[in-house]
């Protein structure tokens, strides 16, 4: 027997070590460090999702309150900073977190795929030839790599829909979010997209919120049980809040029947502005 050949195969590294970058970039070079960054960006994105959802609840206060909320976002920083500057800084930060979160997710997924594939049997696209029997891995944890891209594509759709107004055409009125939201969500296909994407988002948050504690090493046996509860609560709150918009618009409970101001980008916005000042 000459066992040396197989023993050498077992010892040979699967991944090559890269030349270390200067601190702190070398943290991102390691898988654990990358996961740590993924957790931090996840916290940032989760914070945005929650604030965005709560802010959007202004929809239920009518067109002028919604207009006021949108204007307030543009005026963040008050008279100290140029108008919309702070909003743009937040947008760029959000985009950066999104890109880093995506990059780390994709590269770590590839690492795991390479560490599992062709693991000793021919045709090994999956890890085992026989059926796996999972104990702890749940639907949410095993579908992160699907719910993530669904949410990513939905964000693009959402921007094209309500920020750029690509397919609402003449019905899109820049500066009148109440009208745009109602107009968009009253279409059944659009409402379905919103529902599907937000279910995916909630499933993603359900695993992500729990997972980030582990990745950051925030662990205390006394409070560990609360991590799962927090994940469930946040996923539930985001799900209920975000689904309420398409559902209530489709149900006809949010509409423009009792609107005081006309819908256009000249007199309509002026009228909304006056109504907002009167509050």
């Amino acid at each position: 027997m000459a066992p040396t050949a197989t023993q050498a195969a077992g010892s040979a590294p699967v991944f090559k070590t890269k030349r270390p970058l200067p601190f702190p970039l070398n943290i991102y070079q390691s898988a654990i460090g990358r996961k740590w960054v993924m957790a931090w960006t996840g916290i940032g994105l989760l914070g945005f999702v929650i604030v965005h959802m709560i802010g959007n609840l202004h929809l239920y206060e009518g067109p002028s309150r919604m207009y006021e909320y949108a204007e307030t976002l543009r005026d963040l920083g008050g008279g100290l900073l140029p108008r919309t500057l702070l909003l743009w800084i937040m947008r760029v930060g959000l985009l950066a977190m999104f890109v880093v979160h995506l990059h780390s997710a994709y590269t770590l997924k590839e690492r795991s795929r390479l560490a599992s594939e062709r693991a000793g049997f021919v045709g090994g696209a999956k890890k085992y030839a026989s059926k796996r029997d999972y104990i702890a891995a749940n639907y949410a944890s095993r579908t992160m790599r699907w719910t993530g891209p669904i949410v990513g594509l939905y964000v693009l759709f959402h921007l094209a829909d309500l920020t750029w107004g690509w397919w609402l055409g003449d019905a899109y009125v820049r500066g009148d979010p109440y009208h745009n939201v109602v107009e968009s969500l009253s279409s059944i296909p659009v409402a379905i997209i919103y529902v599907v994407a937000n279910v995916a988002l909630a499933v993603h948050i359900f695993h992500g919120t729990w997972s980030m504690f582990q990745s950051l090493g925030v662990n205390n046996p006394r409070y560990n049980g609360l991590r799962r509860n927090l994940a469930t609560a946040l996923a539930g709150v985001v799900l209920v809040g975000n689904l309420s918009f398409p559902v209530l618009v489709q149900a006809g409970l949010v509409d423009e029947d009792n609107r005081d101001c006309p819908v256009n980008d000249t007199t309509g916005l002026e009228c909304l502005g006056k109504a907002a000042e009167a509050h």
Partner: protein
Amino acid sequence: MSGANGVTSQASQQSHGGTLSLTLRIWRQDGPDAPGRFHTFDAPNISEDMSFLELLDIINERLIEGGDVPIEFDHDCREGICGMCSLMINGRAHGHELATTTCQLHMRKFTDGDVITVEPFRAKAFPVVRDLVVDRSSFDRIIEAGGYISVNTGAVGDANQTPVPKQAADTSMDAAACIGCGACVAACPNSAAQLFTSAKLAHLNLIPQGQPQRWERTEAMVETMEQFFGSCTNHGECTEACPKEISLDFIAFMNRDYVKAKIKNRKLTGQS
């Protein structure tokens, strides 16, 4: 535990006669690069008191009697403490019995007529040597990178010279229970070795003897692990598959220590 098991097996011997007839689908592969496939074996008259490895022994004896090549599988102590036995049994590392190694999995846990599928532990860093035997020497590479402490040799120190806090000793002992079998990697959908590495790190990093090399060790062992294994996504499969019930908490401890180590190692080398 053994007393209770003895009672149930006696009771079941009275009612069932204590034997099972099983069908086994076992992975056979002639060498590291040979294509493998499942072979089906009938196993009649299997005693309920046998361990799973003894079942394989019986099948092998029958194969040898018939002039065939026996199935190769890893085993050593057969007492659940060496970490040598492996096997994915019906899609679970070490079988469906929690906190149990394959050698301590008894046939009384199966029912008559079961079809049992047996595959080796799989990961890119665990290449199949033959049949059910995989090469787990990548774990040795991780241990070599820092799974030790340095002590002065010479006369024996005084007893209790180094005070160890009770809590630290207990938790360190929990981590040290790891037998390095690789079930965590086998069970992990990502083929990550976080549970093994974190246990090996925690059992030294928690106690005073491990402090001088703590940050160096953490960085070295994690980065060696990352040459071989996938990335943890916190499924939690590893801790369920672990025959020694190593906790996921050690993974969090390792993650925290690793980022700290990246900072501390700079300071220790005067680069602050």
